[in-house]
């Protein structure tokens, strides 16, 4: 079996897993459920980028993965502080 086919299968599986996360973000009963789902979706996209970078041999997708990782972290921590009713410098 070719190596590219295995990587393409992993990419398809990750896209299906991302749709499971979007289902939880759609049906989440509370705000915290939706925030958890979007946080996990960010980490899944970070895992999706290097696979697609290897499949298409484009190196700039790794920069997108690193930037997405840090921005997802900052956004989640900010929204969690806001959910807890705190100011951002506490």
């Amino acid at each position, binding site marked *: 079996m070719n190596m590219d086919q295995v990587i393409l299968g992993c990419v398809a599986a990750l896209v299906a897993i991302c749709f499971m996360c979007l289902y939880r973000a759609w049906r989440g009963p509370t705000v*915290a459920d939706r925030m*958890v789902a979007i946080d996990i979706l960010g980490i899944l996209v970070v895992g999706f980028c290097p696979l697609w970078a290897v499949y298409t041999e484009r190196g700039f997708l790794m920069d997108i993965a690193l930037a997405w990782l840090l921005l997802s972290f900052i956004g989640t921590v900010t929204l969690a502080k806001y959910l807890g009713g705190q100011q951002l410098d506490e």
Partner: protein
Amino acid sequence: MNEYIGIVFILIGVLFDLFGCIGLVRLPDVYNRLQAATKCVTLGTCGIMFGIFLMQGFNEIGVKALVSVPLIFITSPTAAHALARGAHIAGVRLWKKSVCDKYEDDKKHMGKEKPAP
């Protein structure tokens, strides 16, 4: 040979991602979903990154994948901890069959301790 070890790491990582998201869909509570999804997806994504590094070696893609492994290991549990704390302060209820809530006891204890000095 490194390519086959890397593809094994990638398959294990995708499997961990799948289990984490099954937990995210099926578990009954915010905190249960948070612990299932965060732990499994963190380890799974680190597995994918390490497999990509083993496949590619020290080139443009592989080094960036290796750099992002400790970043994920630091940032993802921190974000999950902040989310759980914020959800508990905002008043999201636990599942009705949960048996233990230590943070509620801590908050009551802190409320009693605060006016003493």
